[in-house]
């Protein structure tokens, strides 16, 4: 099974409240914040690794190819993924300002046509733009089926077909999909038994986790030697057509008033009745 996993970096999402806007409002600045792999991509990457390994024997049985689109520094995001166990990477050099969800989907379409993976497994959104669009557009450009917000994935024929559960606002939906196809992941994809690949024993359980696996020292050393192909939009024959234009950015208004700390339930009830008037 061959899986293509797009990854990008974002300003540390656990400190997103420290993101600032430039004085003229034209740019978001994340100075002082570390770059991290987009957490939603990290979940997809972890799920892709689980789909392509024999977890009991700690053996790779498939291939995960990482692709990142952005400035040259993005290679570090790829190396981080390679250290976790992925086989190789593709860096598509581009300026962040030239990208939007539409262009990203165009680039990924070109790469998917070239690489012919069984699955493209994306984060459902990026933690900065929060758009939730690129994966779905990609699926339509390719005319492949898509399961958004996958929470449980099972295959018993090495990825030719999948039974997938996905999360909805109103519950869960189960679908059968024939590869090649596109997935995006929900938070639940990291549950200990959310992935059944027909190779790892059925009763195998991964440790509880809210992110991807840690890279071992050996993994980090090996990652340096793994191939990363570099290309460009032109090299892929993509003519980018941006469709979104951001004019300005603002920070949300701070909540008014400060926090009132209380010691007893009686005080709280009194405040809610007489001050907030919500009881």
């Amino acid at each position: 099974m061959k899986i293509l996993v797009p990854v990008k970096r974002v300003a540390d999402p656990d400190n997103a409240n420290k993101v600032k806007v430039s004085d003229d409002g034209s740019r978001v600045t994340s100075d002082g914040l570390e770059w991290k792999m987009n957490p939603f991509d990290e979940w997809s990457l972890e799920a892709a690794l689980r789909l392509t390994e024999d977890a009991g024997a700690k053996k790779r049985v498939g291939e995960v190819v990482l692709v990142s689109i952005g400035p040259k520094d993005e290679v570090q995001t790829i190396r981080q993924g390679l250290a976790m166990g992925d086989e190789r990477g593709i860096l598509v050099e581009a300026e962040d300002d030239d990208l939007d969800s539409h262009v990203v989907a165009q680039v990924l379409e070109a790469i998917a046509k070239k690489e012919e993976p069984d699955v493209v497994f994306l984060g459902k959104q990026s933690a900065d733009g929060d758009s939730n669009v690129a994966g779905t557009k990609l699926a339509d450009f390719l005319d492949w089926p898509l399961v958004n917000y996958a929470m449980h994935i099972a295959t018993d024929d090495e990825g030719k077909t999948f039974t997938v559960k996905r999360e909805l606002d109103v519950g869960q939906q189960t679908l059968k999909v024939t590869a090649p196809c596109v997935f995006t992941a929900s938070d639940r994809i990291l549950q200990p038994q959310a992935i059944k690949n027909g190779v790892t024993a059925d009763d195998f359980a991964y440790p509880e986790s809210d992110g991807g696996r840690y890279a071992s020292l050996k993994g980090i050393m090996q990652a340096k030697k793994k191939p990363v192909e570099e290309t460009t939009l032109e090299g892929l024959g993509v003519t980018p057509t941006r469709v979104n234009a951001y004019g300005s950015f603002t920070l949300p208004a701070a909540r008014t008033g400060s926090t009132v700390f209380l010691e007893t339930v009686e005080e709280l009830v009194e405040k809610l009745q007489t001050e907030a008037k919500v009881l």
Partner: protein
Amino acid sequence: MTDVLVVAELAEGAARKTTLSAITFARQVTEATDGAFDVLVIGEGAEDAAESLTGYGARTLLTADVEGGYTAEAYAPTVAEVAKENEYGVLVACASTYGKDLMPRVAAKIGAGVASDISAVAVEDGTLHYTRPMYAGNVFGTMTVTTDVQVVTVRQTEFDAATESGGSSDTEEVDVADATEAAGRIEFVSIETVKSERPELTEADVVVSGGRSLKSAENFENVLEPLVDALGAAMGASRAAVDAGYVPNDLQIGQTGKVVAPKLYVAVGISGAIQHLAGMKGSKTIVAINKDKEAPIAQVADYFLVADLFDAVPALTDAVKSAG
């Protein structure tokens, strides 16, 4: 003049209330540009479902009876055809898991840009400027979409449900478009919906949410739920509580999960990760109940009861009952 197509969301043959938020957007845009809006009701039992939407001022209710359960692959071609045959400037749905799954697929088919999960729209000289939360709600970006047709999903908490304006809309059945190859490779197997007597999370005036500190599904039931019901509230949860299996996924509030903005939000044993705050900091009054005074939920809480939830929640439940 900008005409708008609202794509209705159905659940079990009836229009979900999310549809009314999309109609509110459509009214804002068409009133500002002197346009008109239609509503496309698509899915099994579309004609019956359309009846409930007749009094909201739509020019035409278009119905498409697509058989079988929902997949974007099956629905999107019909929505795209309707869009192509009419001169809509904007297609809109609510930014529910339905709208966010379907609309970008439609956008791809008609070469449109998407303004996703917007919190506001403004019309200036006929151009639509969309404001949308980014960075887990820590930045708001204002953007335009440069394609002729624009696809929009609206955040339900920021677009109040439309109320009936009277009259009745014309109804017209539209053809179901041919399926593409993708539809042949995805099969709807089943849907499990969660039934609750409580108000819907995204619509409730009061939300009570629990975190991992509740420690078990039983405690959610025995400790938290009595407070939820005493307040006539909807119940929510943090990602950690859902991950731990204490409650089902549809209760999750946050950057992933649902966004709520009730009059009163009570966070019980929730530390307040940025990802959780993204889903509730628009609430009017926020109460935190937590042993740890330093918990980041304090950044947004109006009232912070520093207490053990296992003592405080039953006491609060009793107090609410006797006050009511």
